């Protein structure tokens, strides 16, 4: 299928409504990115999302867009509460995959002599890799149900972190409406030993240093300064979330038939938001989102414990505090003004981050004057970014922006490109230590497999759907 694309300006492209599309597509990308996009199926996926019932505004894609399954990765779509649908494929298998950023009281110079020991200890202390599980505990079924209801607060109550952490998590670390009765026994079983584990693939734990500051005032509010050590955690709801998604895709395939919804791709199966099927999914999805918040909270506790032990310093000296924690695979009920009218919408963000503007009531009070912190990881060889949400994003993209670099190379192409290269050795020579469960992941996740996240962030800044605050450089990367 050839997708017609019209350039609007330097970083916006319109896909005019045609055929079964109910609305236009809107893609944020540079000319170079658009040239690359014409070779894969991501634009077609933007069109497919535009065919779903009750879509409000355009079917959008952020500049880290790439070919996904059903929705494109980087996709944002909002649906009317009465006429719209919810689609598990618009959230993804890794429900509430997200990023958490910790600040510290340490400088890069100060930890450099102990960096190898820190990386080794984090690799041992935080279970990672395929099928990673905790050997120190396995949740009882009843305890896991409490995790699903309480999210990050459950972990804090068990001693994994402080109550102050909860203030700086999207939704304070718990999405309302979770109902464990809407989750299968199999999902519960898969989650029991996986809380507090990183997993594999593109998930990581990274020690970083603040390399550049673009907005001194906002950085000051976030507690960031040049040369400072930060820690990023990128993971989600693990096998629990994958099972919830899989279970509800079957429900939604049946629902789509029942409600007469025509699907251009089965993975877009969905149900009307007012149906029992949709309500059940939203309750189960909230359980998985809360599992992910608790997961990142437990890993945070593991990071703190590891830093304290290796560096021989207490919490007061390290001050490893949560800057923020964002979801980038989620569907949420939100109120947005559309054509001057306030509307209740279900906003799907599949590989996209909420980016609410300064003054928004859902932003922690300490950040309200700068906007919501937005965490954009790059690849393991270059850099990550800290942005803040903007009024532009709130007006144009339902308060959404990009979520990362976005892959540009397939896994096979990455393997081919890595032949004869010592990726771990090359990164070590540049001062970046990598600890990984296997070489295969490192090869497939090599820096060149991703777009330069600086290009993605530049488009976001130009379009006014994100504001650059700081750039973080990796020092040590733990991969599953």
């Amino acid at each position, binding site marked *: 299928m050839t997708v017609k694309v019209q350039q609007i300006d330097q970083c916006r492209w319109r896909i005019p409504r045609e055929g079964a599309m109910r609305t236009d597509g809107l893609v944020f990308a540079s000319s170079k990115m658009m040239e690359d996009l014409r070779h894969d199926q991501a634009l077609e996926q933007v069109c497919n999302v535009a065919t779903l019932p009750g879509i409000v505004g355009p079917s959008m894609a952020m500049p880290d867009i790439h070919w*996904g399954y059903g929705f494109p990765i980087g996709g944002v779509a909002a649906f009317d509460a009465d006429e719209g649908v919810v689609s598990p494929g618009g959230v993804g298998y890794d429900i509430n995959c997200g990023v958490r950023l910790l600040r510290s009281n340490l400088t890069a110079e100060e930890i450099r002599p102990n960096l190898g020991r820190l990386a080794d200890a984090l690799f041992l202390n935080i279970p990672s890799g395929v099928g990673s599980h905790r050997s120190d505990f396995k949740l009882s079924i009843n305890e896991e149900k409490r995790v699903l209801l309480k999210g990050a607060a459950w972990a804090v109550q068990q001693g994994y972190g402080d109550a102050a952490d909860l203030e700086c998590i999207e939704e304070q670390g718990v999405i309302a409406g979770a109902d464990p009765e809407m989750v299968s026994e199999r999902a519960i079983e898969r989650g029991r030993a996986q809380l507090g584990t990183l997993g594999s693939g593109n998930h990581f734990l990274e020690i970083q240093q603040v390399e550049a500051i673009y907005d001194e005032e906002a950085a000051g509010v976030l507690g960031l300064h040049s040369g400072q050590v930060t820690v990023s955690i990128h993971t989600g709801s693990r096998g629990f979330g*994958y099972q919830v998604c899989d279970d509800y895709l079957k429900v939604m*395939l049946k629902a789509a038939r029942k409600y007469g919804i025509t699907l251009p791709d089965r993975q877009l199966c969905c149900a009307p938001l007012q149906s029992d099927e949709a309500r059940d999914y939203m309750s189960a999805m909230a359980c998985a989102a809360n599992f992910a918040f608790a997961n990142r909270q437990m890993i945070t506790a593991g990071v703190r414990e590891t830093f304290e032990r290796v560096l021989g310093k207490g919490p007061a000296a390290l001050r490893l505090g949560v800057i923020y924690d964002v979801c980038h695979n989620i569907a949420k009920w939100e109120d947005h003004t559309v054509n001057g009218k306030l509307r209740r919408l279900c906003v799907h963000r599949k590989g996209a981050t909420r980016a609410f503007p300064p003054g928004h009531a859902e932003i922690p009070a300490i950040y309200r004057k700068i906007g919501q912190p937005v965490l954009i990881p790059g690849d393991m060889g270059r850099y990550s970014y800290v942005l803040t949400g903007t009024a532009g994003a709130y007006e144009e993209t339902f308060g959404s922006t990009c979520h990362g670099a976005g892959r540009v190379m397939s896994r096979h192409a990455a393997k081919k490109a890595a032949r004869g290269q010592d990726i771990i050795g090359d990164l070590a020579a540049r001062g970046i230590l990598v600890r990984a469960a296997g070489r295969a992941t490192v090869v497939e996740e090599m820096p060149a497999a991703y777009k330069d996240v600086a290009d993605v962030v530049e488009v976001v800044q130009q379009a006014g759907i994100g504001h650059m605050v700081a750039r973080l450089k990796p020092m040590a990367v733990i991969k599953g």
Partner: protein
Amino acid sequence: MLAVTIGNSFLLLEHTADMGIEARAGSYKGLLEAMAQGLTAMIYGDSPAAAVVTAKILVRAEDPVELLVSWLNEVVYWCEKDNLVPAVFQVEPISDVELRAVLSGEAFDMKRHVVERQVKSVTYHQACLEKTPDGWYARVYVDL
């Protein structure tokens, strides 16, 4: 689209972020087994495994494509649950929406097995299953 040949009966397909599996076989049973072998190769590469333990699986679905995806997701589940490296798949189709299978393999051993990548789930994106003049053909894409 580029395809990577592993063995005789299936191909691992290129995708920007994920991967796909495509198989052809003379019989419906052979097709379901070949797709599962492709999935195993995607996760464990060419790690050799012995048929030491078995899992008995029953899968029901609403239509043939859903049965294919559900069958492969059963394999993902058993690999994760029992830390299993599959060696042999014996599929017994009951109808085009129901099958029984026996999955035999052994527990993952770091000394002998390699994990190439984690499969989160097998998706319905562009999933297809069809009868061809020569036999059967199927394709799925997998979330990694």
